[in-house]
């Protein structure tokens, strides 16, 4: 086994024949690091090779048969990626924060004794050492850290870089089958379930009234529901509201919920964790009500207030009902 070379490996995901947004962001981040290190940028694509032709920006692309067609298995992902790391020995591996990244990064870091940073929002190279900036405590603090001069892994928060706009060009592509792996798995490829269709369409709404854990209890939802009703718009929510069973899943905004871009996103009692921001930061105007002046939501909001939502919402209802 040779030591780590100066390459950067990026884990790419494709859906419906195109690379995901976060994949393009990883290529952009990875390219900068690869340039600083003077090594190649290698893409490992979970998806068919026709997508790879658009993965220019990488010098080499390794393709795996789409998990979307075989079904997803965390163990299959780890086994496949381990083989590529073993073969290519990159200096840095970049994966997106999300199920794939969470399944891969810790396991690979143990297997290869790599230094791992998660929640990464920025990367740099300083005298041959890789440095990462990570977002901790739900986005309340940032940590700059040194990942050393050996093999490092960064699990990157979606939205941390501007997606690289890819052209078409020559890229060396090799295809790999997962057949040999599939037979021996303890965790078989899963059966995919699309989200349930429902009456509420928070994606189409021009205005969303969104509620978070700050609402405190199910019974209190009525207060905000009254405002949503008065405005004639659907209520959306952060994950804890859904997990508590206070609102059904189709109302969830964020990483594992829906991505929304209304004209106005009006939030009450939502802290603005990275997984929530991922789903709503592209809204045209964000108005946030949160009693904590340090809540990360204020970093993306256009208008903010630290009033108690229970004092503010009734006043809004009164105005709207006029």
């Amino acid at each position, binding site marked *: 086994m040779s030591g780590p070379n100066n390459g950067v490996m990026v884990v790419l995901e494709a859906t419906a024949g195109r690379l995901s947004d976060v994949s393009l962001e990883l290529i952009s981040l990875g390219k900068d690091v690869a340039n600083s290190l003077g090594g190649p940028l290698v893409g490992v694509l979970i998806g068919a090779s026709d997508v790879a032709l658009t993965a220019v920006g990488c010098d080499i692309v390794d393709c795996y048969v789409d998990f979307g067609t075989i079904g997803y298995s965390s163990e299959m992902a780890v086994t496949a990626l381990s083989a590529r790391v073993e073969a290519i020995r990159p200096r840095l591996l970049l994966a997106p924060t999300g199920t794939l990244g969470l*399944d891969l990064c810790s396991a690979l870091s*143990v297997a290869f004794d790599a230094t791992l940073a998660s929640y990464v929002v920025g990367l740099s190279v300083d005298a041959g050492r890789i440095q990462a900036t990570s977002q*901790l405590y739900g986005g309340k603090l940032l940590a700059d850290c040194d990942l050393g001069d050996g093999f490092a892994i960064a699990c990157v928060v979606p939205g941390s870089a501007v997606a690289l706009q890819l052209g078409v060009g020559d890229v060396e592509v090799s295809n790999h089958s997962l057949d040999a792996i599939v037979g021996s798995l303890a965790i078989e490829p*899963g059966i995919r379930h699309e989200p349930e269709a429902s009456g509420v369409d928070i994606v189409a709404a021009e205005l969303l009234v969104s509620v978070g854990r700050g609402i405190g209890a199910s019974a209190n939802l009525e207060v905000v529901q009254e405002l949503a009703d008065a405005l004639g718009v659907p209520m959306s929510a952060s994950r804890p509201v859904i997990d508590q069973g206070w609102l059904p899943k189709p109302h969830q905004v964020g990483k594992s919920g829906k991505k929304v871009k209304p004209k106005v996103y009006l939030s009450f009692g939502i802290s603005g964790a990275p997984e929530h921001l991922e789903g709503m930061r592209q809204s045209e105007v964000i108005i946030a009500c949160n009693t904590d002046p340090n809540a990360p939501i204020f970093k993306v909001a256009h208008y903010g207030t630290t009033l108690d939502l229970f004092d503010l919402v009734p006043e809004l209802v009164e105005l709207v009902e006029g």
Partner: protein
Amino acid sequence: MNIIVAMRQLADLVEELEVDSSGTDIDREFVKFVSNEWDEAALEEALCLKEAYGGTVTVVGIEEVDFHQTLHAALAKGADRAVELTGDFEGWIPTRQRAAALAWFIRECDFDLVLTGVQAADDLNGQLAGAIGAMLGVAHASVVTNISVEGSEAHITQELGGGVTSVSRARLPLVLGVQSARQAPRYVPISRIRQVMAEATIEKVPVTGESFGNTPQVLRLYAPEASGTATMLEGKPKEVASAIYDVLVAKGVAGSRKGN
């Protein structure tokens, strides 16, 4: 069905978090610690599994500020055994170190499932489930929202993002990072916790400090700079409401277009 749940305490994110004089860790002195919310989900799923299939639930974690509260609450909710790993643990503990100590303990146990929270908000050094799985040589999966068991097999549901889920058939044993349980974590009255505190014992198991591999070195911990884009609306609720309403009207989503 023997289930081990790895739990911990974590700074309450609703609190103001200050950076200490070293500049690389939070000031742990005055901050309030609470159970990691995702560990609570892992415990809930474990208790539901025990109720459905029998067996035992062991809760284990590293000696840290207020960790006994987590253990006592877990026992009060129905866990059978509470274990605290003692040793040289101070300040911020990298996931690799945490995982190594937990794996060292778990390896000697008879287990079908190891459950832990999908993440903790200070997981700078990765998430626990994958690290424990790799150390034990046991298959692992994260962002799990449902588990059912049939004999030596489980069906696990993972969220893949955007509302898409994937259900896999898997052979036990497994290490799973739990995102949410099938139901919200159960409530346990404080009187019951007090009773447990008086009666139950927490097993203390000393772990000997061994190397746990490479971890990132924190150079600087700091609050992000305000992006400066948010206009803070000051005043009484009536005034702020009126300012917000003006924005809604200006964007054409309220007022003249009421009813949308």
